[in-house]
């Protein structure tokens, strides 16, 4: 029982440590040149003084749609990961095939410019 909680604790520490590591790398590497506009609160890149009925670029929807599609693959990865030991090589090959098929779709979206930001 205690072991299980220890695993969870290690997991939490790993996640926090990993996040802190990434953020500190970001602070060290990125340029820092603040301007008033940059310091505004983030509204998906749109200046946030416009009236509420302003238009959003459809790009956001395209990205959101792609996100939904690629996000759902995780639903198959989780059960597979849980049973990974039992499934062995067969399961690995199957999952690689599955991801290759997804990558074809990803390559298509990329090449078609669906991932270009504006």
């Amino acid at each position, binding site marked *: 029982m205690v072991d299980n909680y220890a695993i969870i604790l290690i997991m939490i520490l790993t996640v926090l440590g990993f996040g802190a590591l990434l953020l500190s790398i970001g602070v060290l590497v990125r340029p820092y040149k603040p301007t008033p506009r940059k310091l505004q609160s983030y509204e998906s890149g749109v200046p946030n003084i416009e009236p509420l009925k302003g238009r959003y670029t459809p790009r956001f929807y395209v990205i959101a749609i792609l996100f939904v599609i690629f996000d759902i693959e995780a639903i198959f990865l989780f059960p597979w990961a849980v049973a990974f030991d039992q499934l062995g090589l067969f399961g690995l090959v199957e999952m690689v095939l599955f991801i290759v098929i997804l990558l*074809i779709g990803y390559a298509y979206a990329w090449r078609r410019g669906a991932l270009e930001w504006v």
Partner: protein
Amino acid sequence: MEIAPPPFDLGAIAPFLIVAVGAMIALLADLFIPPARRPALGYFALGTTLVAIGACVWLWGGAVPRLAFANMIAVDRFGLFVTIVTLIGAALSILLSVDFLQEQRLGYGEYFPLMLFTVSGMILLAFANDLITFFIALEILSLGLYILAGSARGRAVSQESAIKYFLLGSFSFGFLVYGTSLIYGATGTTNFTALRVALEGSGLTDNPLLLAGLALVLVGFAFKLALAPFHMWTPDVYSGAPTAVTAFMSVGTKVATFAALLRLVTGALPALYADWSNALFALAIVTMILGNLAAITQRNIKRMLAYSSIGQAGYVLVAVVASDTTQPGVNDAAQSSVLFYLLAYTFMNLGAFAVVVALARPDDERLDLDRDYAGLARRQPLLAAAMAVFMLSLGGIPLTAGFMGKLLVFRAAIEAGYWPLAVVGVLTSAVALAFYLRVVVRMYAGESRHAEERPARVPVPLAVVLAVCLVATIQFGILPAIPLDAARGALTITAP
């Protein structure tokens, strides 16, 4: 502990694999091919379907029936027959599309890859032997068709068609999945073979969950097959979609979905025969009457063909009702007539749409029966003659495939004791002649509005489609032995 993987029988699903891999290759190739070379993708797609037909023929001679992938797939001659019919329909539709897309300036986009993905769904549907495989296959085919229906992005009607198709398609999918979940809940299995075994001689057949599930599944099927009174979307969707897409979906979807319906009700739920045959009986009568009556008043050829396809589905349904597995002789006659009718319908309906495609001009699709079809025989005698044959066949005039199909269907209905279905069928066929013959009369007696115009040039691929459909329609009407023997040989639904 190791979980033993199920036997990995890729050969059993060769036709599906060929089409699905072909679709992915086409999708990737689409990225690197300059727009001017896009028609090449059409011929690649055509080749893929032909190779898949070859794989079906190879499997037909091999060890069938066999179950694969933990019994989720049943590779039997029934599925292979349906797959071959679907693939023929797909191959002809692809040939139909190559020049049509260019001429109508619709752009190729993802057209051919989508078509192949849709076909892969149809193939999987024909082989599905599990509720899960079944609804995934149905969704693969539907999702592809939603996009194809809206593939004319510049045209409002096409987008409207896609939205309507999508909303009603997913609505009906909800019913279907709910129904399958109830069937699963009542029996504890999703596998068709296991379902049949579980229901045989059990007290489950009165289970309210099971019956509610069956009812919901039938409603879902009725939506997908455009059976009245669940057909409202069909005329709008068929007339709004690009004609080549309409041709494809009116044929392929019906063939594969009818196969799935037949496999589900006779392969998995024969114990509920009394229940589903009564429901389908009512649907068949309403469908035959409403579809054919509504077609009479249509002036737009695509809307007319849409209502006509509703009526035709009614005739196929008559034979499905007669598929009583407790009477082997009757059941064989009924099921082989379903298969024959679907084959005949593929050729005659695709042929009719091919003529509509041939007449379309870039600025005007030429869909009005009174304006555009009047006097066609004088300007384009060959096209008019072909259209006349397809109309007569759809109407069920002797010496055509449509007549043989109707004859077999009605005979099966009478043998099974469903003479009211046969009577309604014959009466509505007589009514249907009114609108089929009207097209013929317009073409041969009317005065052309486009007399001064040069006749449309029929591109070679389209001519091939017309020739194939024409030959098949007439040949199956005069010598139905070959397809009928094949259909009779295909009556092995999932021996366990």
